[in-house]
């Protein structure tokens, strides 16, 4: 069998149903085979970054590795941002890149790039296949490495001559043989007993859950532990959906833009149970002042040993799969009650709720709230990166894992729309909404063609404030209001007339998202007032076609609460209540 046929056969044997990508010279042999597969649906995107983010959205929405197929050189380098996004957020991907023939490697051949060198720091592992005999093993290992342990992206660099080479007696390996890679799933029983004892003795315990809870599907165990021992739960951005936010014990998100009550709870708790999370700087703020009342009593469950005690030393480290470890804890742990602690938290929740000025103006927080109401909280929400991302985290209540897709670690603008398309392919009957900003959406807007042609009815709710809003907020707060290169709109004079002297056909807003959507054959609608919003959302959900809802929101709204970068809970700004 030839290399290109082996790849397609191997993908089928791995159960792959969808591959995202874009063809080119150095991967033509594989493209010559993949459209013959009856199992694999190939989604042709308009950019390789879009393809890789789609594979990422598919992976986050299903838990299975996402697959992308691209050509060498620019095709491969275009995946780098998406690989880094997936690496930071531990998303399983297998990205197969064409490469120039092995005898041309290193000769600066046409469309040659050292992609295994370039992607080394942003992948969990990568391979350059230089011998056809290695190919079946490499593909098997790639899927295994991507989807096991702390998940992550794997790149296979696949030279053209290997695609064309023949391997007699091809068989796909049944299992991997990787003695150097053995993730630990079962937590150490002694450490688990120590954790149980610490939780049972705690007076003010707190669960702090991250993306690991979603990947290991430990949400039911988190809920059981929280309820049995009356422990309030806060989650990171990537942990949203790991604990039902409608639950009385939910403290919602913590950290820089976390709720005040979550951050106060972290500050006051005497026992912190960190599950599937990595004490990221957006969570901890100033390390020295993070969780000062439990520094000798932190339990940390994580599948990646290098995440433990990286930023914050912990007293009970448990390396293992979140679900398996929590299941073991639940076998032993006795029910507890903490009426005083719960009362304290309730007081904070009442005193410092998430709030915004709800006047006659269309405000972005209100838009998210109405998205939640219109979908009854049953949609899959993707976001881009910026202010709208934080509002999407605050004002939509997530109750199920794999329903919130967002670039947390890398903070990649342009992630949400392709990720939403990937999720829509995985869940054709679900309502999938990308909550976007007018800046971010333009970073992968070309995928609207992919959405239309593949009939993917993703709704993009654009919070159009004519600004790169989060940067503007920082310039307002930390750079003395010096707005430098953040205004996306047309300059106006004091009377409100355009002051740029541009010809009349230039639209009021650039681009005119409504007409842009229509140009692609999608639906577009502008929302200017609160009254127009809910009918527009209902129309968009009923349409079952790709829709851009261009919501003209208050321009200079800020995200609160906020703890400035590197500061502690004492510097938390609550914003208006």
């Amino acid at each position, binding site marked *: 069998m030839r290399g290109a046929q082996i790849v397609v056969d191997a993908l089928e044997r791995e159960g792959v149903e969808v591959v995202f990508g874009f063809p080119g010279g150095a991967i033509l042999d594989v493209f010559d085979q993949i459209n013959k597969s009856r199992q694999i649906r190939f989604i042709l995107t308009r950019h390789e970054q879009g393809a890789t983010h789609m594979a990422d959205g598919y992976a986050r929405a299903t838990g299975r590795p996402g697959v992308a197929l691209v050509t060498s050189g620019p095709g491969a380098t275009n995946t780098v941002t998406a690989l880094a996004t997936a690496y930071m957020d531990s998303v399983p991907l297998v990205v197969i890149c064409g490469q120039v023939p092995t005898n041309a490697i290193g000769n600066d051949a046409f469309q040659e790039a050292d992609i295994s060198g370039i992607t080394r*720091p942003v992948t969990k592992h990568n391979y350059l296949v*230089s011998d056809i005999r290695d190919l079946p093993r490499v593909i098997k290992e790639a899927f295994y490495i991507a989807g096991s342990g702390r998940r992550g992206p794997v790149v296979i660099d696949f030279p053209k001559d290997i695609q064309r080479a023949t391997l007699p007696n091809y068989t796909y390996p049944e299992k991997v043989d990787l003695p*150097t890679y053995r993730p630990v799933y079962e937590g150490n029983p002694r450490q688990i007993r120590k954790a149980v004892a610490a939780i049972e003795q705690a007076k003010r315990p707190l669960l702090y859950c991250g993306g690991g809870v979603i990947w290991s599907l430990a949400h039911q165990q988190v809920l059981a532990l929280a309820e049995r021992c009356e422990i309030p739960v806060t989650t990171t951005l990537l942990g949203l959906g790991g604990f039902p936010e409608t639950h009385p014990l939910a403290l919602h998100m913590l950290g820089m833009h976390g709720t005040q009550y979550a951050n106060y709870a972290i500050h006051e708790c005497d026992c912190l149970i960190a599950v599937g999370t990595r004490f990221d700087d957006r969570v901890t703020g100033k390390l020295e002042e993070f969780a000062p009342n439990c520094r000798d009593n932190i339990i940390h469950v994580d599948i990646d040993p290098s995440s433990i005690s990286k930023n914050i030393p912990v007293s009970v480290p448990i390396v293992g799969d979140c679900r398996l470890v929590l299941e073991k804890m639940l076998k032993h742990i006795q029910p507890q009650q903490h009426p005083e602690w719960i009362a304290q938290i309730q007081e904070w929740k009442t005193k410092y709720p998430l709030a915004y000025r709800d006047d006659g103006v269309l405000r972005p927080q209100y838009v998210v709230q109405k998205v939640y109401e219109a979908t009854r909280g049953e949609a899959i929400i993707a976001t881009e990166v910026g202010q709208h991302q934080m509002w999407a985290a605050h004002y939509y209540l997530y109750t199920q894992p794999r329903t919130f897709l967002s670039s947390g670690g890398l903070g990649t603008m342009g992630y949400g729309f392709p990720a939403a398309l990937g999720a829509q392919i995985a869940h054709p009957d679900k309502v999938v909404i990308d909550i976007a900003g007018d800046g971010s959406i333009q970073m992968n807007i070309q995928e609207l063609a992919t959405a239309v042609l593949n009939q993917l009815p993703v709704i993009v709710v654009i919070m159009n404030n004519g600004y790169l809003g989060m940067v503007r907020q920082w310039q307002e707060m930390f750079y003395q209001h010096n707005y430098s290169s953040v205004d996306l709109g047309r300059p106006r004079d004091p009377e409100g007339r355009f002051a740029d002297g541009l010809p009349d056909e230039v639209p009021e807003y650039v681009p005119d998202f409504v007409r842009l959507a229509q140009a692609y054959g999608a639906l577009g609608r502008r929302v200017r007032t609160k009254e127009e919003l809910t009918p527009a959302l209902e129309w968009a959900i009923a349409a079952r076609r790709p829709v851009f809802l261009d919501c003209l929101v208050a321009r200079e709204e800020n995200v609160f609460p906020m703890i400035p970068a590197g500061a502690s809970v004492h510097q938390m700004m609550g914003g208006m209540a």
Partner: protein
Amino acid sequence: MEHVISILVENHAGVLARVAGLFSGRGYNIDSLSVAPTNDPGLSRMTLVCRGDDRVIEQINKQLNKLIDTVKVTDLTADEHIERELALVKVASTSQNRSDIIEICNIFRARIIDVDLKSLTVEVVGAPQKVQALIELMRTFGVREIVRTGRVAISRG
């Protein structure tokens, strides 16, 4: 504090780049590094000397272990171990001082491996302090060039 870390890795292309990239990407410094195949030709041994507090060294250890190609990471510093380094030192010499140089080399059990009218090349093997001591003495004669292997180390027993 200085640590000597011994890393057993799969012997194939790109592994050295992975280890070196891990150090540069995470801002750790490498004082010296030596790599060669072991008695098993499928495996290579890297001996790496680096500096850092306990937290940094623990992270280095964990990050190295995380690489798929890593078989075993051992921090030799904590236990009894032997370190050796080889240096080639080209020293300026004349007929007047040649015998002085040779005398010092004999004390250090270093060998003269090349000679011409204007220079001597000395080969010295030993613990890093010994190698350094000889180099310092040679400086008084005028060192033209030094080539060092970096340290290799092995645990005792």
